[in-house]
């Protein structure tokens, strides 16, 4: 069952010069109960606008957002506030109350809902344990590290036990090791509490680490959506290809033809490139190589180039023979 549906969603902003700026154009999406759904795109693609439309922080110009089958923009104010307490949101800049303690920050959404004091205390203590910040409850956010601040924000967003959590670039301000910790916390929240997550990011690594499915937003449009593994193996849209291989092909001269190889299982342990060179006598150039874990399976990814077009046939033959998944692309 889908928990959130986005139907023909468009959003146009008026710029200060009075021109129209299209942030989103005719986006359709369906997010399933219990999944981790990633939305990736380069900056300015419209992904932040999309997530802000999902809890109506931004009003769609046209189209609809359905939360648990009900159209958000047709709700009365009171119903919308109810719905919002069932949709948590996490921000890149944490957005904590700096003059309130960690405890009061997490208690804030419960106070809004007029919970009893004792119930609030119990719930906040429970959340502090979940995010591992029991000792920090009387401190103020400015005294915490970025990762700790984001943990407070996560606890705050979970306070009212929402069924959906929206994360807008939640890890973009954090260093790689803190990012890893936060992502594993998010995964725990998803698996153990059954909270559906929508993760907006520009980092493919975040998607690869936690998401089940991913949508790619490019130039205000949804260009591709599917299981992360499928898109990783076989990106169809140009935007997906650009995002997937950007790290590996950044320094490649334009119009160069390159191969993107993906291999898994025992092939990870074999000297594939050495065999290729010996068997085909083609001197390949390894431009990029990495090992990634996607949905709990490990993959090797490699970008290679050859110097002569005549050698391409030999290389392709070798890859086919050895059952190595590859795509041939030209650097844009």
């Amino acid at each position: 069952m889908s928990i959130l549906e986005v139907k023909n969603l468009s959003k146009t902003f008026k710029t200060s010069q009075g021109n129209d700026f299209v942030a989103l154009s005719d986006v359709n999406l369906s997010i399933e109960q219990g999944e981790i759904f990633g939305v990736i795109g380069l900056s300015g693609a419209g992904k932040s606008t999309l997530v802000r439309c999902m809890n109506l922080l931004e009003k769609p110009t046209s189209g609809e957002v359905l939360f648990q089958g009900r159209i958000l923009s047709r709700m009365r104010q009171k119903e919308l506030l109810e719905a919002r307490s069932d949709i948590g949101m996490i921000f890149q800049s944490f957005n904590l109350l700096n003059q309130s303690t960690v405890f009061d920050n997490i208690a804030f959404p419960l106070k809004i809902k007029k919970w009893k004091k004792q119930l609030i205390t119990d719930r906040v203590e429970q959340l502090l344990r979940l995010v591992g910040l029991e000792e920090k409850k009387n401190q103020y956010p400015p005294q915490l590290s970025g990762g700790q601040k984001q943990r407070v924000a996560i606890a705050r967003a979970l306070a009212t036990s929402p069924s959906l959590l929206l994360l807008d670039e939640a890890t973009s301000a954090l260093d790689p090791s803190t990012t890893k910790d936060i992502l594993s916390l998010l995964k725990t929240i998803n698996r153990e509490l059954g909270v559906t997550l929508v993760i907006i990011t520009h980092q493919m690594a975040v998607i690869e680490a936690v998401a089940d499915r991913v949508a790619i937003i490019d130039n205000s449009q949804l260009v591709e959506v599917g299981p992360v593994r499928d898109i990783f193996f076989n990106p169809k849209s140009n935007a997906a290809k650009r995002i997937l291989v950007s790290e590996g092909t950044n320094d490649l001269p334009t119009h160069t033809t390159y191969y993107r190889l993906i291999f898994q299982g025992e092939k990870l342990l074999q000297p594939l490139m050495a065999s290729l060179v010996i068997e085909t006598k083609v001197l390949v150039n390894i431009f990029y190589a990495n090992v990634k874990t996607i949905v709990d399976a490990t993959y090797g990814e490699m970008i290679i180039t050859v110097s002569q077009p005549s050698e391409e046939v030999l290389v392709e033959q070798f890859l086919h023979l050895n059952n190595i998944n590859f795509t041939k692309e030209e650097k844009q």
Partner: protein
Amino acid sequence: MSPEFILLILQGILETLYMTLGATLGAYILGLPLAILLVVTKKGSIMRPNPTVYKILDTLINLLRSVPFLILMVAIIPFTRFVVGTSIGSSATLVPLIVAATPFVARLIEQSFEEVDKGIIEAALSMGAKTRHIILNVYIKETLPSLLLGLAIASTTILGYSAMAGFVGGGGLGSIAINYGYYRYENGVMVVTVILLVLLVAIFQNIGLYLNKKFDHRRR
């Protein structure tokens, strides 16, 4: 110094404190809701933007703020008489003090509120907070240190106004300075009142600074 003189000065101090604190209280009671209306209705506000309401309040505040205090005080004498029954003495001075300080205080509070990061308001909205929650828990609580600093500025400015009111029978240390120090050439009285006024300003200023530090959790 004669006992009468000391009594006179003491009474002056009490009257000045009465006017300053009373007018500050009055100006905040009226200025705070005004400032809240300003930020809530301001263009681009994510609560209830209403350009017409904002424009009217904004213009009104600017108009009142541009009338010099002494002129304002004399100009609204009929209004003061209507409210208090007289236009002389420290109670009567409260009326023009509040009228003059309210728009000033509203601006000070509005400026403090402007410091609030929009992201925090969005976060509150995303939790299902109503405008009331945002004003109390976000605007007021988040900017408390800055509001307290504003309070110090407001009270010292009002203290200055109240001394000015001494010129037209306003009471307090200002009146003593005018009546004894200026009209009777008693330079000693003039010096004493000036020193006392400076001391009072310093006390208000320091109380404000102390409270600002005490309630600011950002720099620890």
